[in-house]
């Protein structure tokens, strides 16, 4: 199966373009990818710091997975649907989510799940793999309406073990809906390595059971990811049905800020990868080879992003406290009498105390 699903690559670790691949990615596009990945990485690093400082709660880092997330998200267009997990903020940010709201998510705020008007992003799914059938559903709806909008859904290697992974893919394939199932295989589900998760050597091969298009790409090569997703998205748009993509990647850090990865793996692997397979370093090398890199450009980006992040943090920190109405608003369209009574009682007791 490893032979049947070779890891598609466009830009290799040294920054060289694979001569066998036809790609029409421009330098400008690559620079744009670099910017988007840098933005995602800087936000991630900053978030880890905010968590350490107690300014946000437990945080889920994605450092190392920027190419997979940015490359895939960049292949979507306005009106398309995105279904992230808790780890996919690089993707949602790229697709237009608000940085402030992403930060609010880690403050335990409902706003964290709310993208700007007109941007179709579901709140990040917490129960693993449960979002796959949703993506099949929104895609099916678009197909029924005859639009060309697609659904892109994120999930990890661990998620492939859940029944909903299977049911989501099966529905999508039976009804030939325009959905792209985008797997980020970062090798671990918390502490559980891929070889304990499945006997299969690849995730891509799981598409074979559904007669579904499937492929495996280097998830740290943004060009390869973008190209593969773009192709899958185009196929979906034009009625060609769903695709399963495996993007092989790695998370440098812990599962979340509450996790200690040294319990289950040697973190020197991450150090090594930072020097080799890193998605940003690779573009830096590429751009340098292409003589399209200047340190001034890179630091101007950094500055710009830094400002954006600082502004978002400020907004996050100045954001009004959660109002108690958020407890019951939107549970139903109109609250039931049970909740109404409970809240009245609650407020009465609070008032008495105050």
């Amino acid at each position: 199966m490893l032979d049947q699903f070779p890891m598609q690559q466009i830009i290799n670790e040294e920054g060289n373009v694979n001569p066998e691949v036809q790609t029409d990615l421009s330098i400008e596009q690559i620079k744009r990818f670099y910017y988007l990945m840098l933005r995602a990485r800087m936000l991630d690093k900053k978030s880890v710091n905010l968590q350490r400082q107690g300014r946000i709660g437990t945080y889920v880092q994605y450092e190392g997975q920027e190419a997979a997330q940015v490359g895939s998200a960049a292949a979507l267009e306005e009106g398309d649907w995105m279904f992230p997990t808790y780890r996919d903020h690089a993707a949602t940010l790229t697709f237009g989510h608000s940085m402030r709201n992403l930060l609010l998510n880690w403050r335990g705020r409902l706003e964290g799940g709310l993208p700007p008007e007109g941007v179709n992003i579901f709140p990040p799914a917490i129960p693993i793999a449960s979002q796959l059938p949703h993506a099949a559903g929104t895609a099916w709806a678009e197909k029924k309406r005859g639009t060309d909008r697609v659904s892109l859904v994120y999930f990890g290697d661990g998620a492939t073990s859940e029944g909903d992974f299977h049911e989501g893919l099966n529905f999508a394939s039976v009804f030939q809906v325009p959905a792209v199932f985008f797997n980020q295989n970062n090798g671990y589900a918390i502490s559980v390595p891929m070889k304990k998760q499945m006997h299969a050597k690849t995730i891509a091969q799981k598409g074979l059971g559904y007669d579904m298009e499937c492929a495996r790409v280097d998830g740290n090569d943004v060009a390869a990811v973008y190209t593969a997703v773009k192709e899958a998205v185009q196929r979906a748009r034009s009625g060609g049905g769903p695709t399963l993509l495996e993007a092989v990647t790695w998370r440098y850090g812990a599962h979340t800020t509450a996790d200690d990865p040294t319990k289950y793996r040697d973190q020197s692997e991450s150090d090594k990868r930072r020097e080799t397979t890193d998605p940003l370093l690779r573009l830096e090398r590429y751009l340098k080879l292409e003589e399209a890199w200047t340190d001034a450009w890179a630091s101007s980006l950094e500055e710009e992003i830094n400002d954006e992040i600082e502004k978002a943090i400020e907004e996050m920190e100045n954001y009004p406290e959660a109002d108690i109405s958020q407890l019951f608003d939107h549970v139903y369209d109109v609250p039931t009498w049970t909740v109404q009574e409970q809240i009245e009682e609650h407020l009465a007791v609070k008032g008495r105390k105050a």
Partner: protein
Amino acid sequence: MTTTVQTKSMTMIQGINDALRIMLEEDENVLVLGQDVGVNGGVFRATEGLYNQFGSERVIDTPLAESGIIGTSIGMAANGFRPIAEMQFLGFIYPAFNQIMTHATRIRQRSMGRYTAPMVIRAPFGAGVRAPEIHSDSVEALFTHMPGLKVVVPANAYDAKGLLIASIEDPDPVLFLEPMRCYRSSRTDVPEEKYTIKLGKAAVRKEGEDISVFTWGAMTIETMKAVEEIEKEENASCEVIDLRTLYPMDKEAIAASVQKTGRALIIHEAPASGGVSSEVMAVINDTSFLYLRSPVERVCGFDTPVPVYSLENEYIPSPEKIKHAIRRCINF
């Protein structure tokens, strides 16, 4: 001015079919999906004729996967459609539990109202039709502890049609439970046109003075039988209330009746412990404690699985047991 309403004598299954047809006709976003609901017309014929009338894009045979059915319905509902998903039997809803509990019921709140799941999950349920194990489970209680969901149980054709249309039009997800034993057990006059019955409202099936008997679904059959008999056997007048919606419950109707009669009995076929009867008791406690002249009684299924069919008649609350409980209540 008088308007004449055309009515037709219908079984409950016809009432359900009629409601589905009307809503499929009225709203092109309404979809019917599930196992065998299309070409076959449903294992109980609830969807008979709909596939031919509306075609395979609106009346959809799905793969055999409850989580997939509910999960994709959530996606379609969030994206403008109004799916009516059939679970072939309520006992087969369990694989979809996660999708209902963590998504259908929560997507409105999780997205602060941006995405909603206006969908109906229809499911035949209850014992008494000699079905194999699991098929007869009555687990309505599980779904009344699931904020975001409404739970509706009609007991006759009129209610079935009106409540189903109301459920389809409801902006929130509704679990619509169809007591199999009522599907063809009786007929009611049902308006041919569209009408709705407000969710959350109980129906007084029979007025009475001495005791309030609360029930729903197929147990209305045993209850009415018991009440008829006991009113002849004893000098007692019973009020029978069909709750019809189990969440949110009709607190006013429960309170009004108990405050009138001073006594209450709840009948359901699900196991007593953790059953909806406990919640009715809680509502009575909260609203009518000082009116109670005797402990609230309940006649329910045993705390056992619904048995294989050779024993289901022992399992289902009998008129005899209901009468016994009424007597004990009245003579307390």
